[in-house]
Every structure is written in C-alpha cells, then in structure tokens.
C-alpha cells in the first residue's frame, strides 16, 4: 500500500517537476519520496525505476505522436540505434535508472540516519 502510494506520488510529482522545472529535478522528487516513504532497498529501486520509466516513456511517446515520429526517426539514425522504438526504450530506460538510483539513495540515506528519525508518517 505504502509502495503504491509512493509510486503514485513519484509519477505525479515527477511529472509536475519535469514539466515546470529542469529535467533533473525528477531525481530529487524520487530521492525525497524514497527518503520519506520507503525503507526496503529492492522495493525502492523497483518503484523508482517504474515511475520514471513510465513518466519519461509516456511523454516521449506523446511528443513523438504529435510529431509523426519524424524527430524520433532522425535521432534514432543519428545516435545510431536505427530503430525508433529502441530509442524510446532507451529514453524510458535511462529515466528509469535515474529514478531507481535516486529513490535508492533516499532509502540508504535514511538507514544512515536511522536513529535520529523518530516520526515516521507510516509505520
């Protein structure tokens, strides 16, 4: 339940931050949510990955649809991956890794500071 809640928070606040703030702020969002709501490493990694994977993947797909995939095709030749779908996957995957490491960082920082923390929002 807590995990689902964290996932939704990451997606919503991650998307909002990305739309209005520099792209890397989504890492801070994942970090803070990881710090505040998650305590198991593997779980945090998965949630961080999935949330940013979804946010980046969805927006990349929407933008590409609006553009008839012209830019995606050209960039997949440029990089060169020669496959637009692969480039979409790489994009979402890169986002996912950023999300995973960020939320994991939150959990790890929390374990270092275990003692001073008394008030947990959920127990």
């Amino acid at each position, binding site marked *: 339940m807590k995990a689902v809640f964290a996932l939704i928070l990451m997606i919503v606040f991650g998307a909002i931050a990305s739309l209005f703030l520099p792209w890397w702020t989504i890492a801070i969002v994942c970090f803070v949510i990881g710090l505040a709501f998650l305590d198991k490493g593997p779980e945090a990694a998965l949630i961080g990955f999935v949330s940013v994977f979804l946010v980046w993947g969805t927006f990349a797909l929407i933008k590409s649809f609006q553009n008839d995939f*012209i830019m995606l095709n050209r960039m997949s030749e440029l990089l060169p991956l020669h496959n637009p779908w692969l480039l979409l996957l790489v994009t979402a995957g890169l*986002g996912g890794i950023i999300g995973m490491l960020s939320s994991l*960082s939150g959990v790890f920082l929390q374990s270092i500071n275990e003692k001073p923390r008394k008030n947990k929002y959920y127990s």
Partner: protein
Amino acid sequence: MVFLLTICLVVALNIRIGGKPAFGKLLNPFSGFYNLGENTNTLHLADEIFAEQLEESVEIYFDERRIPHIFAKNENDLYFAQGYIVASLRLWQMEFQVLAAEGRIAELLGAGEDNKFINFDKQQRRIGLKMGAENKLKVIEADPFSKNLMGQFTAGVNAYMNSLKKNDLPIEYQLMGYQPEPWSSYKTALLLMNMSNVLTSTEYDIENSNFAIKYGESLFDSLFNDYSDQLEPIFPTPPAGWQAYSEEYTTLNITDLPVNAENLQNLGSLYEKSDVQIGSNNWAVSGEKTVSAYPLLANDPHLKLSFPSVWVEMHLNTPDLNTYGVVFPGAPGIIIGFNDYIGWGVTNAGRDVKDWYSIEFKDVTKDFYKWEEGWRATTKVYEEIKVKGCDSMFDTIIHTHLGPVVYEEFPTQDGPKNFALQWMAHQAGQEYMTFYLLNRAENFEDYLDALRYYECPAQNFVFACVDGDIALRQQGKFPILEKDQGVFYMDGSQKEAWSEFIPFDEIPMMHNPDREYVYSANQHVADSTYPYFTNGVFEYYRNRVINKELRAMHKVSKDDFKALQFNEYNLMAEEALPLLLSYVDRSSLDEKGKEVLDALSLWDYVNDVDSKEATYFQLFSESYYTSLWDEFVETEVPGGWDPYKWKDGWKAPNEYQTYRLLADSIEHRFIDMEETKVVETTDVLINFAFSDMLEDVDTLDQVEWGKYKNTLIEHLAMIPAFSTNLDIGGNYKIVNASGKFHGPSWRMILDFDGGKIKGYGVYPGGQSGNPGSKFYDNMLSEWATGDYHELVNSTTPSTYQNSNYQSVTLKRP
C-alpha cells in the same frame, strides 16, 4: 555511495563529455530533442507575437508548404518581420554559414582530423573574408538608408533569437553544444562575402604558372586553349562589332615566366577552391515566341544541394511593394523572383576577379617587400583562431598594396614564393541595393538603375517585363585586364592595384534582341572581338543545348520551359563518345564487352534516371581523362565524382579541351602514361579506359544512371542522419544539372501572360531548417519530379485568410 553515484550520474548526463552531447539533456522528453520535434498540426510560431520595435502590426500567412506571405504597413516593419520569420525557419543555418565564413569552425568543432578545421579557419581568414565583410560593413554604416535597412532586419532576427529558451534552440546547437550570438549587419556582410567566395573561385593562376614554367608557354597555349568557333558566347558579337564601345583595344605584355623543366617534387597544396561544379541557367523569350504573346522567363541556379536548403521562399508586401521569390537566409529582400511588373534571375558570370602576385620580402621580419627598385612597408593583422578543447592558434596576416599574403614560402615550380591576393570581393559593393531596387523595379530603366550598384560576384541578370521587354546583362565590377592577366601569377613588385574598371556602358547587355530570346549558362561572355580581355572558368555544353532549343522555340508555354529545365541531353557525350568508340577494338572484347559497346553505339545521349549507357559513358570518359592526365590528376579520386582533384599545384585541361585535342588528333607528351615503361598511344589509352570501365561496371550493384549517381543532399554539418540521397536523372554539363552533390537549388518559371506575372517554382528541400519538422524536406520529391507549385503573390490579404493558411500577427505590445 549510491547517493554519490546518483549525483554523479545526473550531473554527467547534464554536461557534455568528450564532445558527446549531454545525454540526459538530449534524451529527456521534457527539454530534450523530443521537444524540438515540431507538432505536425500547429505552426512553429504563436498566433500573436509582440515586438517593441514595430511601428504597426504585421500580418504573416503561412501556406501549406510553410511559405510566408508577409503583409506590413511600412518598410521598416517589413524587414523586421522578414528577419524574424527567416530566423524562425533557419536560425542555425544562418549562423553556421556566417561562422564558417568568418573562420570560426574550430571554435565549435575542435581542431578536427589532421587539424582540418583549424586549416579551414586559417584559409578563410587569409583569403580575407573577414576583411571584405568589414569593408562592406563600413559602406553599410556610412549610409543612413542601408544602415537602417540592415538594422531592421537584424533587429527582427535578434527578436526571434531572444524569444527562445536555451532548450528551444535548434537541434544542431544541442548536438554541438554552443549557443547563437546576436545577429548584426556585419554577419549579413559576412554572408554576402561567403556567396562571393563560392561564386568567384574561377581561377587557376598558380597552377597554370607551374605548368607554363615546366612545359613552356606554347604547350600551355595549345593544350589550354579555351575558346573555339564552335562555342556560343552569351553575347554574340553585335553586327556593328564591339569596337563601337571602346576607342582602342590594348594588349599589354604581362610577365615573362621563367623556364624550369626540372621536376620539382612536392609543389604546394593550394587551398581548395569552393565548388567548381556550381553553375546556373537562365533565359527569357519575348512574346514573338510564346503562345500568349507575352514573355516567359526561367532561372535555375545550381549550387551545393544541402539541408537546410540554400533558399527560403517568401512573399513580401507593403502598400508600395509586392515581391515574391527566394531569399538567402541572413540577408534582407528577395534575391531571385518577381513583382507585379518585372521578373529577374541570375547565373554566375564565372569571370576571374582574383589575381595572384608573387611578393619578395626584404628579410625574415617581413616588414618590407620589394616595390620597383626599392621597398614598401607591409602591415600586419593578427588573427586568433579559437580551438575548442585546445589553446588558441595565432596567425599573422601580412598585407601589401595588392592585398593579403595568403601563401608564404609556398613551393612552386619556380621555387618557394609568397603570394598576395587581389580580389574584387575585398572591395565594398552595395549589392544589397541592387536587390532592394529590383524588388521595386517596374521597367527596363529601373532594372538598369538597380544593376548599377552590383559589383561582385558578377552575375548574368535576366529580365522580363509585363510591357514585353526582355533583357540580359552581365553585371559586375571588372578590372581592365592586360592580356593574360589572371591566367598566370604576376610580379608584385611591378604591379599597382587595379585602378581602372570596365565602364558601366561597355558591359555587355542585350535588350529585346532580334532573335527574340536571351540566355546564359555560365558560358563565355563574348568572343575575342570584345575589346576587353576576359578570363575565367566557363561552361561548354549545357549552354549550347539551351541555345539550340530556344532558337527552335515557337509558340511556347511554361510547360516547354519546364521541359527545357529538365532537358537531360548529354552534348559532351554526343561530341566525345563517337570519337572514343572509333578507337575501341571490338575484336578484343568478350561478350559482355561487346554488349556494352553496342549499347553505347546506339545510345541517344540522354542521361535519364534509367539509362545504363549514361553510367557506361561516365565511367569510360572518367577513366580516359584520368589516365590521359595522370601527370596531374590524383589517381584515387574519392567517389569518382570530382575530376578536378588535382595533384598539388597542378591542373590538367578540362574535358572540353581534352576532347578538342582528341578530335583534332593533337599529339602531345602527356598521352604517354608516366608510371608505365611502354609508350602509350591514344589508341592504347582508350582501349585501356574501355576495359577499365567494364571492370568498374562489374563491381556495381546497380548500373542505372540515377542509382549509380545517387545524388546526395547533405546536411551543412555533414550529419548523415539529417541528409538524404535521391535517384534522379541529369548531371553536370547537362541542362538538368542535377549532379552528385550539386544541382538546381531553385527552379523558377515566370509567365507574363496577359501582362500579369504568374510564377511557378520549387526547390530541393523545405522551408524549415529543423530536421524534426515535416517542412524540412517536404518539397524534395516535388523538386525531383518537376511538380512546381504556383507562387501566389496576391496583394490582398483576404486571399490568404482561409483554412489553407495559418496566420501570425507581429504587433507592438
């Protein structure tokens, strides 16, 4: 640990490492490249744009090809809007071209392989592109009118640039990691200098001198004879002769070249001449030859085929002006086009307006150089070439009264020499005034007045008017040359700078000639009876096909003009192939060889897209040419497309000269190949070339001409993913001049039917410079198939106020 790793990763993804783009920045879908892909349903600009500088509102209507129709209430607003709109379509291209002209490529891209970018920058500075632009700028700024004109355009470009956030900058900026600088009149001047550079690389002074020094002037004269009675100059000798123009035709002795038959190894490598394969066609016929009894005019300038396209198409309107055509991204006004009264187009004159002089320095300080019996002082200019990722390079450019010393201690057949360059482009003309006035011209007199301002690069301006007039004039500023001046380099201690120029009234022109047509295709301007010495690089074949077709034209319409623009007849093949084949020994060939020989004998000499014979001929002719002139031609020609790839310091006769020598059976020492022990004859060479061609053909996957040629339209920064290949007919030296890398960069036909001009045109690319826009290459297939669109130049905005157009209003806040 993970925390640090995360921070490191995010930071690493946000900065450029090792010249690679910042991947996080580039790939994230919020501010990365996804964002630069244009929404295909909306315009690239907002409906309303506010700009302080405007006096009144400007309405802009974009059609379904994103061609803007700009309606302003006054001139200032018009040129502001033109700057704004051009920048919105082509910002990166405008800036990149200017940075290249200024010699600042290493600053963006680093030193490059073998320091190629540094060397390029050094070349641009040494030949004086910056100096020429600075001279032009002074003239622009000295005149309040031109200062204001350029200022309005500049303000428009900068207003657009300032409206962009860093993330909105074109993709090329993101990939190469730099940002645009504010636009200025200086940058427009640099752009015009760049055009001059591209169009006036028509000289071989140092190469010719090396040849004449080693082999003697008489051999030079017989091999490089450039003119014959078979050729048809742009301006035929008038019935009264040219003498009426000039009091006396003076022939002055130029220089006594030394003789040095010794083979000096390792001559200097000259700077690459920009694009010797460029050219253009234009023509006009009077009402006597048309169905409508009104003139028709056509123009297709052949330039490097590139993305973003060379041209932007536009319609400019104020209450006093209504003009339509194509513009250079970065300069105000229409360059080729029409208004409600006249139409005009240009081809390159190809005249030599670059002279080289050997300079002797007094000592190593190079503070003085020899002048007559004494010495003159040099001036020095210090240039810093910034190099990305390295320390700057510094270059000292020495100036003489003739111009900058481009080459120092340069190895020639007469030993090391310093060479100064005198170049018409260094002088400050007011070419922009020509276009400003042509945009407003209403008749022949206005056309002539407009051309008075035009100096360099010299062009053949074709003209037609709704009143039925047609005209052609080769306009430029030409120094009065001594005979052979510009063919060889000269002694800088004996020559003053150019001071006399061919008077305006003695520049060749035709106005309503009896033959009822005018045309030019980069051929010779006039024959030897013209009372001034002319020299340059000219065209021999395409122009004669055009002349033949025009002469025969009767009751023609725009479709006949289109057919002529697409004419793919290979006159060089008609003249050269039967000669070549007469030497081929049929009995020595195998079945495949006989098949090819028979096919070639029956060929109709048309380089259409499916022709196999065109490919055979191309390879056959190339092989003959390179083995004949093996002393001068690099044997390994990359791609086999540039027969002008010379060994350092040399140049061989061109194809026309080559086949003239063959036709006249002139024997000369070069027929023997240097590398072999046996003595080759023409017979041996041609049979060798034929079998060499057969071997080449065997290695080809596809022999059809279009597929073999596989025309490349290349991105300016040579990014393959942003470039395209196309299988089409035509070639260099053919009216449809679609070669491997160059071609008709704009095809335009103007129909003056009923005294109202209707334009048709198309160019190979699209209005947008954004590779993520559907308007990046949307006109390419229309261009390839000859699907010209109508150039709608209505003076009433209501024409454009419907669902086929998207509108933008530029207004004061």
